[in-house]
C-alpha cells in the first residue's frame, strides 16, 4: 500500500448567490488532515461543516461557488479537470453521508452498488469485484456477506445500511474518508459500533478521516484534533485534549458547558443564549459577539482572526486568555 497522503485546505470559501445577495456559508477555512488522523469538524447546525466537506471534493452545485485551495496529492482539487476529479472522488477520497436510509440507491442490490465503485476505480474483473465485495462486507461487519450482497437497501436496518455505505466508500482503498455526521441518524449503541469501525479501519488502512459532527461526545471518543466552526469560520482548533481541557474561545467553552459531565456533580446544563446569526446578516466584528458574555467594544469593532497561540493550537478570540482563565466557573 502507498504511503498516506495529506490534505491541505487553505482559505476555502463557499458562497451562494441568492436573490437576497451573496451568502458566505464557508469563510476562509484552512486546515490539514494527515494520514491516520481523525479531524473533528464541530459546530451547530448551519455553521458550515457539511458545506466545507462538500466543497473539498467539488460537490457544491451552482449557484454555489468555491474559492481557495484544496491541495491533495500535489494538485489543487478546486481546479483539476472533471475527469481527474472523478478519479479522486471515491477512489482516493471517499465520503459517507448522514442518512444511510437515503444515500443508497433503493432499486439496486447493495452488492451491485459496491461493485459500481470498484468498476469506476479499479481494473478488477467481475469475479474479483464480487470477491472484493464479500471481503468488504466482512471488513465492515455485515454477517453472511455472500447472501446479503443480493439484498436491496430496504432489507437492511439503519446501522447495517451505514455499514454498507462504509463498505462502498472503502471499496477502492481511499486515503481519506470524509464522514458527514455518519452516526447522527443512528441510535446510540449502533453509533458506537460505527465509530469504532471507522477508527479500526483508520488504523488498518492508515486513512485520514474528517468527521463532521455536532456531537461532542463523538468527538471526544474518536478524534485526534478538532476544528470548531461558527458562522462559516473556524473559531478554534487544536488537539482534542487541549480543547476539552481548556477551551479558549467563548463559543467552544459554551459548547462544552452544554454537555452533561459524567462523574461531575449534577447541575443544570448551561445553554448558549440566543441563536446563531443568519449568514446573510452577520454582525460586524466577531460573529459570536452578540451571544458572548466576554464581548466588549473591541469585539464589535473588528473581527478577530484565527491566530496561532501554541503548536497546532489556534483561536480566533480577542479575549482567549480571559476565557481560558475563567475555566473553573462551570467545570
Amino acid at each position: 500500500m502507498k504511503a498516506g497522503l495529506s490534505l491541505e485546505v487553505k482559505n476555502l470559501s463557499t458562497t451562494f448567490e441568492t436573490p437576497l445577495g451573496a451568502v458566505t456559508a464557508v469563510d476562509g477555512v484552512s486546515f490539514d488532515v494527515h494520514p491516520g488522523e481523525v479531524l473533528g469538524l464541530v459546530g451547530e447546525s448551519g455553521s458550515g461543516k457539511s458545506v466545507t466537506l462538500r466543497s473539498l471534493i467539488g460537490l457544491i452545485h451552482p449557484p454555489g461557488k468555491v474559492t481557495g485551495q484544496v491541495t491533495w496529492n500535489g494538485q489543487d482539487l478546486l481546479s483539476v479537470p472533471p475527469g481527474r476529479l472523478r478519479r479522486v472522488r471515491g477512489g482516493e477520497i471517499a465520503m459517507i453521508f448522514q442518512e444511510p436510509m437515503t444515500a443508497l440507491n433503493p432499486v439496486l442490490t447493495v452488492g451491485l452498488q459496491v461493485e459500481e465503485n470498484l468498476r469506476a476505480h479499479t481494473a478488477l474483473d467481475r469475479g474479483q469485484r464480487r470477491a472484493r465485495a464479500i471481503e468488504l462486507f466482512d471488513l465492515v461487519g455485515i454477517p453472511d456477506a455472500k447472501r446479503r450482497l443480493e439484498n436491496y437497501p430496504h432489507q437492511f436496518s439503519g446501522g447495517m445500511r451505514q455499514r454498507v455505505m462504509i463498505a462502498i466508500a472503502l471499496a477502492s482503498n481511499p486515503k481519506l474518508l470524509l464522514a458527514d455526521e455518519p452516526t447522527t441518524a443512528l441510535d446510540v449503541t449502533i453509533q458506537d459500533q460505527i465509530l469504532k469501525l471507522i477508527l479500526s479501519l483508520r488504523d488498518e488502512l492508515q486513512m485520514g478521516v474528517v468527521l463532521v459532527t455536532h456531537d461532542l461526545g463523538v468527538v471526544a471518543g474518536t478524534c485526534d484534533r478538532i476544528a470548531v466552526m461558527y458562522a462559516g469560520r473556524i473559531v478554534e482548533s487544536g488537539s482534542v485534549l487541549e480543547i476539552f481541557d481548556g477551551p479558549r474561545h467563548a463559543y467552544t467553552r459554551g459548547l462544552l458547558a452544554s454537555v452533561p459531565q459524567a462523574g461531575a456533580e449534577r447541575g443544570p446544563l448551561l445553554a448558549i443564549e440566543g441563536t446563531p446569526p443568519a449568514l446573510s446578516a452577520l454582525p460586524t466584528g466577531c460573529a459570536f459577539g452578540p451571544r458572548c458574555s466576554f464581548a466588549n467594544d473591541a469585539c464589535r469593532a473588528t473581527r478577530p482572526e484565527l491566530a496561532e497561540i501554541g503548536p497546532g493550537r489556534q483561536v480566533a478570540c480577542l479575549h482567549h486568555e480571559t476565557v481560558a482563565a475563567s475555566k473553573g466557573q462551570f467545570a
Partner: protein
Amino acid sequence: MTFALSLRGQRRKTRARRIPVSLIVGGAMLAIQLLLAVFPSVFAPYAPDSFDYNALMQPPSLAHLFGTDNFGRDVLSRVIHAYSVDMQIAFFATVLPFLFGTSIGAVIGYTGGLAETIFGRLVDAIITFPFLVLVIAIVAVLGPGLNNMYIAVGVVDWVFYARLAVAEVKVQKRLDYAEAGRAMGYSPARIVFRHLMPNIITPLIVYWMTDMALAILLGSSLGYLGLGAQPPIAEWGVQIADAKNFMGTAWWMSVFPGVAIVVAGLSFSLTGDGVAEKMRTRR
C-alpha cells in the same frame, strides 16, 4: 387498537404480493390479441382478401360470424388479420420515441441549464399543435403509408417521454443516493443511466402502455383517412373507412373493427394501470 393496526399491516403485506386484477385481465387480453396477431391464419376462418360475390354484405351468420363486407370478404377474418398490422403499429410507432425520449430526457434533466431551457421551448412549440394535426401534416408531406406514419409519430411523440423523464430525473438527481454517486466519482452518464434510470423508469413504462393504446387509435384514424395502412390491407381504420358508406345498411362492417379498436386500447390501458399499481406496491 393495536390489534386493528397490526391487522391492517398484515393485509397490506399480502396485497403487496398479489398481482393487481387490472394486470391479470389486461395481460390476458393482450396475450390473446398477440396470439391473433402472430398467427392470424390459424384463427381466421377465411383469407382476409378472398372475394365472394355470392355473399356481399351478409349480416352475421354461422358461416360469417361478423358478416361480410361489400366485396363479400369475411369481416371476422379481416378483423383478425388486422391484429398483426395494428399491434405492429402499437409497438413500432412507440418503441423508438420511448427509448429515445426517455434517454434524451434523462440526460437533459440531469444536465439542466441551457439544454433544459431549449428543450422547454421545443416542447412548448410542439404541444401548441394538436398531436393528430401535426402527425397528419407530416404524413401528408412524406406521403401515406405505415413507415412514414412511424416517422411522423416518432418525430412528435418522443417529446412527451422526454418531458416526463426530465421531470423525474430533476427530482431524483437531488436525492442523497445521486449525490453519493457523484461523491463516489461516477461519471454523469453512469449516474444517469445506471443509477437514476431504474428509479424513473416505472412511470415511463406506464406511459408507454397508454401510448400504445393511443397509437392504435392514431393508426386506425390515419388508416381511416387513407394516410396510414393502405387498402386492401386489413386494418381496422381502413375497414371502417370502407364501411362508412354502408353504415345504415350494414352496421357489422364498421362496428366489429370499432369494437376491436376499443378492446385493444382497453387492454393496453389496463395493463398499464396494472403495471403502475404493481410497481407502486413494490416500493
